[in-house]
């Protein structure tokens, strides 16, 4: 073992949350002067691994060896003392303070009662100069772009004499030039001998900036090698695993007839660009793209949960396809967002009250009051139809398992008989049997004539039900594939390295 060469090793790291294993003996090896990409699909365990390194969570087992010495990291503060800095996707900037204050906020240099402003500015300038950036230290951070703010965050890490810097999705809100500048900064840090750990969902980036790649799947480290030994398709394969043949629930159908919904030129500045697509009745369309590709944003924009800056949505009402405002479309659509507990259900309410919520107007009696009997009947019907496991309709939703909570969300919408379902990660955090149940339900909906636009991080899952795929990347639909497309075609479609495709900004 050459301690001078290897700066950071994590070995046999295990971690379970509430009995469910997030990491099973994962490992990571990274060297000073190199950038190591950590790749993995949602839930692969890379965030947990990084949070352990950053002191945000404690590991159950395993050891961290930094510069040849075993290190204990129990809090973010300790991590900083050990020289581990974490540049989060969500920056920890204090917008109304100056650049210098932001860099020094946790230990402002003082003489007597007063801050040594000039000294602080001088040191900030020096730190920023190392990053090749000349922002005046007395500028307020709120006046800076996100890209500049990120540099301030890196400068803060450098002030702590960071030996290891973790970048978590650093480019997700950067413009093209800002991205190039960040890469230059990272190259500079590498020549200074810093260990860079780079997490991203953009495959092209790791090939232009990283020397090594580590791939995680299901809480384990499945691959670790110099970047030259892999290509993008290989990385996608490693991330997603061999598509296990769970078998299709329904063979792909070729939907015919007029579209139910047609979207043209949908645009949200910086997020979505030139989105055109159509969905026909009874069709399950998979929206396939990596996290951060704009898939969630597209779903939210369709029903007005996020604003749009342009484009038309047309909806079939009777015979004609007429333009409709997103807020109006919301009334016809069953929307299941990725944040089940925050947006899907009202946790302190009962199953019955949750299911009734979007259906109240259909439960009124002649006094224009909600008829308890009809509400109960509706709730019982949904519990029965969706096989919700609960002690009864009055059980509080917060006490249900994730799968049953998700069924309650479906129950809410089913009763409104929507003609289109927008599903964002409907199986996130569910166990395998619950996943299958949800997927069967999706097919059942389609059989009854509903259209479905489905987002999932798990390719196998999409491949069990989808009749067609829309491929989304950096806020644009870049391709469309038939339901018969195989795993490699689908993986290849998002593994395309295309530097021209920038998010509109």
């Amino acid at each position, binding site marked *: 073992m050459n301690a001078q060469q290897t700066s950071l090793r994590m070995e046999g790291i295990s971690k379970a949350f509430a009995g469910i294993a997030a990491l099973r003996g994962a490992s990571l090896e990274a060297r000073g002067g190199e950038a190591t990409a950590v790749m993995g699909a949602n839930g692969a365990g890379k965030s947990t691994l990084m949070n352990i390194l950053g002191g945000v969570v404690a590991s159950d087992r395993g050891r961290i060896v930094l510069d040849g010495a075993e290190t204990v990291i129990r809090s*973010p*503060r300790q991590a*900083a003392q050990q020289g581990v800095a974490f540049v989060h996707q969500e920056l*920890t*900037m*204090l*917008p*109304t*303070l100056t650049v210098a*204050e932001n860099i020094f*906020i*946790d230990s*402002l240099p*003082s003489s007597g*009662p*007063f*801050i040594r*402003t000039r000294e602080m500015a001088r040191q900030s300038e020096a730190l920023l100069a190392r990053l090749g950036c000349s922002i005046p230290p007395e500028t307020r951070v*709120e*006046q800076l772009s996100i890209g500049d703010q990120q540099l301030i965050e890196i400068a803060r890490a450098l002030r702590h004499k960071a030996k290891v810097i973790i970048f978590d999705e650093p480019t997700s809100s950067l413009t093209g030039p800002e991205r190039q500048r960040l890469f230059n900064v990272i190259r500079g840090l590498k020549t200074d001998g810093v260990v860079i750990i780079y997490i991203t969902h953009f495959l092209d980036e790791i090939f232009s900036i990283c020397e090594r790649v580590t791939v995680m799947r299901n809480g384990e480290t499945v691959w670790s090698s110099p970047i030259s030994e892999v290509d993008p398709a290989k990385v996608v394969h490693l991330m997603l695993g061999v598509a296990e043949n769970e078998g299709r629930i329904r063979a792909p159908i070729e939907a015919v007839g007029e579209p139910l919904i047609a979207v043209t030129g949908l645009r949200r500045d*910086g997020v979505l660009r030139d989105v055109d697509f159509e969905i026909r009745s009874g069709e399950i369309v998979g929206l396939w793209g990596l996290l951060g590709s704009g898939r969630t944003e597209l779903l939210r924009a369709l029903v007005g949960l996020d604003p749009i800056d342009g484009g038309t949505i047309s909806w079939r009402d009777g015979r004609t396809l007429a333009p409709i405002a997103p807020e109006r479309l919301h009334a016809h659509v069953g929307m299941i967002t990725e944040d089940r507990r925050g947006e899907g259900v009202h946790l302190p309410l009962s199953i019955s009250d949750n299911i009734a919520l979007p259906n109240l107007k259909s439960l009124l009696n002649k006094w224009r009051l909600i008829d308890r009997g009809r509400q109960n009947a509706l709730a019982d019907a949904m519990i029965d139809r969706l096989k919700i496991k609960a002690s009864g309709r009055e059980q509080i939703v917060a006490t249900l398992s994730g799968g049953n909570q998700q069924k309650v969300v479906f129950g809410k919408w089913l009763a409104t008989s929507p003609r289109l379902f927008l599903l964002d990660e409907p199986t996130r955090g569910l166990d395998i049997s619950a996943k299958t149940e949800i997927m069967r339900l999706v097919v059942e909906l389609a059989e009854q004539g509903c259209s479905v636009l489905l987002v999932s991080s798990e390719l196998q899952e999409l491949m069990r039900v989808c009749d067609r795929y829309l491929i989304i990347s950096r806020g644009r639909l870049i391709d469309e594939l038939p339901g018969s497309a195989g795993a490699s075609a689908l993986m290849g479609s998002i593994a395309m390295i295309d530097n021209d495709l920038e998010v509109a900004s």
Partner: protein
Amino acid sequence: MTARGKTSDFPLQHGFFVVFAIIFIFFSLATQHFFQLDNILNIFSAMDPLAITASGLALVVMSGRLDISVGSTAFLSCAIGALLMNQGELNPVLAAIIVVCCGALLGAVNGFIVVVLKVNSLIATLSTMIAYRGMALALTDALLVQLPPPIRFLGNTRLGPIPLDIFVMLVVLVLVHLLQTKTAFGRQIMAMGNDIAVARKVGLPVDRIGFFSFVLAGALASVGGILTTIQNGAVSPFLGSGLEFTALAVVVVGGISLLGGRGAILFSIIPGAFIFEMIRDGLTNLGADPYSYRLIGGAVIFAAMYADALKSGRYSMRRRL
């Protein structure tokens, strides 16, 4: 984007001064006595207690919370001091020190309720606002407490042509301003007001900072109370009544956002307090009904708060982009 932001923000950024100038010119033209050095000095002198109290409240507001008990804190601590002087024949200087300590203690109670018991600061200080006032009224039997004769006329002291309390105000405000802009504590208050979760993540002791912001607000409120008491020569049962609101208004009108993290003491509090005292003075000079003052003052406040909400909305939008 910067250029566009600047032009569209102009009415918001400078609106205050436009309104200020219009009111000032109006009163100067409409009344004979308003625009005279003596009267202007009077306005400055009359606004001192308000400005000092508001500076303490401003620290809490900058930290992202509110303290509406400041008026009652001033009342209770001054009532204790005045009673000690009258009944215990306490030395006035010692009494003043005790008053400030009482203020700090009452602020510490607020801080404890908010930081340790984790009660929402509005509800906590709403309760203590009324409880402190009740305590003070119980102590004074809701009667006027006269100051002992030797210091009763201290309020008329002047340094040359300028009333002494103007200097007191300037010294206090400069000190608070330095605390807020130049010390680690002051900057950490601002950091906390930006986003308490981020401040905690960065490793700041937000509980301690929050607690001491309440202590300072209480102490400064009692200093404001002392000035009012000296100006009036007595502690009236209405001391500080409604002050919490006027002080809050001074803070907001001066440009310190209610959402925290923004503003500076000296350049916010002085113009903010001046505009309120100026309206009161101008209305009196106009011979307007004294009761109309609250209404007009309230309308100014509402407009200022709306501007603040609008401005903060824009800032947060810009931050997201």
